[in-house]
């Protein structure tokens, strides 16, 4: 079983995506989805040699809902900055976020989250993978912003990836 389905999460994702692309629930579509879900993980296995174990469960769902909520808030926040803040009053700065996360996948998710949420875009990572370079559009207190990102997103990701 483990040899036939080395990555159950990817298998399920491929089946669901395939059915969404087809936009109908049929036996033929489901069968082809299962075939893709079996073959693709088998052939792509060399690309993820040391995959972190992801816990699919309530923390992951809570994290996705939190990020979607933050994206909506971020949109209104950035829209207000664009419309009503004069350029010389924008306090944009670079943030240097020390990382507790170890795996490349978890850091990628964190960087993507940072780019999608309030006033921050992740720019670069340090060569040793221990620090993240982030640009903030408007921050009064850089240290507080770093602490907010660490407690709001990174702490939750540490629970999901382990």
């Amino acid at each position, binding site marked *: 079983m483990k040899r036939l389905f080395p990555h159950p999460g990817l298998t399920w994702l491929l089946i669901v995506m395939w059915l*969404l692309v087809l936009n109908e629930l049929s036996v033929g579509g489901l069968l082809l989805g299962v075939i893709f879900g079996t073959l693709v993980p088998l052939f792509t296995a060399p690309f993820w040699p040391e995959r972190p174990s992801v816990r699919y469960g309530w923390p992951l769902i809570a994290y996705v809902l939190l990020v979607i909520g933050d994206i909506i808030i971020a949109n209104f926040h*950035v829209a207000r900055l664009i419309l009503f803040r004069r*350029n010389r009053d924008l306090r*944009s700065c670079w943030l240097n976020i020390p990382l507790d996360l170890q795996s490349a996948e978890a850091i990628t998710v964190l960087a993507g989250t940072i780019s999608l949420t309030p006033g921050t875009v*992740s720019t670069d990572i340090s*060569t040793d993978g221990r620090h993240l370079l982030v640009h903030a559009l408007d921050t009064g207190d850089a240290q507080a912003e770093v602490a907010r990102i660490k407690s709001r997103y990174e702490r939750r990701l540490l629970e999901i990836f382990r």
Partner: protein
Amino acid sequence: MTAILDFIIAALIILGGAFALIGSWGLARLPSLMSRLHGPTKATTLGVGSCLIASMIYFPTHGLSWSAHELLITLFLFITAPIAANMIAKAYIHGRHVSGGRAEVNENPLPPPPHSGAEWATFGVPPSPKPDERAQD
């Protein structure tokens, strides 16, 4: 019932259009490249998102078939937007590094590397490649 749904659909489309407009306005007026990057990655995601939700409500309520493609468009947009922003940002700090660290007007200097052993990944190479990666080189 249809009238209420029509109001919701119209409101979502107007909201989406407004956010797309604000995002583009931000692209035009913000002072530096890094701050201009904030417009397209955020204001536009909600702009496209609410148009897609409006489309998801409109088609089933007007006797046409339900479609899941809007969900996929949203998903792919959320995956690709941060990557595109990251590539532009990396190209920007690389270009600034090549031109001798000359900062754009209104832009802050880059923070120093985290510590002496490490560099920002755009400028340096990872310290010790893993054995199997070295073998391929």
